[in-house]
């Protein structure tokens, strides 16, 4: 009994000493070492792995570049050896492209619009699909990286990094407004926002401007919130009930990953198509 007590005592002393030492070491970097030690480690920002010159390389950055390069290489190889009778690999790529093309066409219902916008939306869908599903590979979240004395997750889904999501959203927002101008002309586009036919139409037009910018926030936070909260949910479940607990939530995560990846470009397409179709209807 006393031996065990002694052993426990020494371990406690050792751990305390360790904690003390680490606290001293971290004091400059982190003031809240105790929270850092807890099982659930949630951070809203992506964590820096190392610095490449002046650029901090975060855990979501390398994932984003890996996925982009992998997609470019795979599709370049597929485009290089196209055959009239497709092999297995070409058939796989063709199935993805025609499936997503038909999905986009079913939303626009306009051959001209579909032909002009599908490359951008198809790429967005594929990138989001890959990055969301990449996060579903089991065990990746357990990998840790030691940097400057503390441990951070080596891996983070791209869409769980708000900077990446807002960048994609802003690009698509500009692209969407430019496309609307291209199809209905600048007069039709500005007529929606600045209507001088009366007091009430003028107020409605101003509200439309606010509504258009609110879409940036709601679109980007829908994607970010779903993926980020799913990561946190699985992490919490892993802490409460290890091994079996996260399985149903991982299945749910698989579903949200696919749905959100397709829904984000689909919503932008619907909003874009709404402005184009509304204008066309007014002129018939």
């Amino acid at each position, binding site marked *: 009994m006393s031996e065990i007590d002694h052993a426990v005592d020494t371990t406690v002393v050792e751990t305390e000493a360790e904690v003390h030492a680490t606290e001293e070491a971290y004091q400059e970097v982190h003031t809240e070492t105790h929270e850092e030690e807890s099982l659930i480690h949630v951070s809203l920002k992506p964590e820096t792995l190392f610095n490449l010159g002046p650029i901090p390389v975060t855990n979501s950055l390398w994932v984003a570049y890996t996925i982009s390069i992998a997609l470019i290489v795979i599709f370049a190889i597929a485009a290089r050896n196209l055959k009239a009778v497709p092999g297995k690999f070409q058939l796989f790529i063709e199935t993805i492209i025609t499936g997503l093309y038909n999905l986009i066409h079913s939303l626009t219902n306009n051959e001209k619009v579909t032909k002009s916008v599908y490359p951008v939306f198809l790429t967005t869908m594929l990138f989001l699909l890959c990055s969301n599903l990449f996060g579903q590979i089991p065990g990746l979240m357990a990998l840790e990286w030691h940097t400057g004395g503390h441990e951070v997750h080596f891996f983070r889904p791209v869409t769980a990094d708000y900077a990446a999501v807002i960048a994609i959203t802003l690009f698509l927002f500009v692209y969407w407004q430019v496309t609307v101008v291209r199809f209905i002309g600048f007069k039709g586009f500005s007529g929606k926002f600045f209507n001088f036919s009366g007091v009430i139409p003028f107020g409605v037009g101003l509200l439309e401007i606010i509504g258009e910018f609110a879409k940036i926030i*709601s679109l980007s936070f829908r994607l970010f*919130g779903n993926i980020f909260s799913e990561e946190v949910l699985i992490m919490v479940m892993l802490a409460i009930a290890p091994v079996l607990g996260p399985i149903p939530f991982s299945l749910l995560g698989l579903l949200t990953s696919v749905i959100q990846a397709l829904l984000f470009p689909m919503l932008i397409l619907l909003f874009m198509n709404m402005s184009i179709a509304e204008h066309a209807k007014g002129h018939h």
Partner: protein
Amino acid sequence: MNPEVAKLFAAGLAVALGGALPALGQAIMVKASMEAVGRNPAVKDDVFSRMIIAMALTESIAIYSLVIALLILFV
């Protein structure tokens, strides 16, 4: 009340209330569109795209409350 504790309560309440009511709204919307498709299956595609837009607009309220909760917790 300790300000830290109040923060946790506020974030939890923001998501709980801000998530519950839009969920109710979405449920009503899906019920209505399912009924419409059940009565007239020919309008399936038209109802589907309208339902998605309306659900997106309703869901943005839930998303704003999520943003507020995240701001309370992390910023």
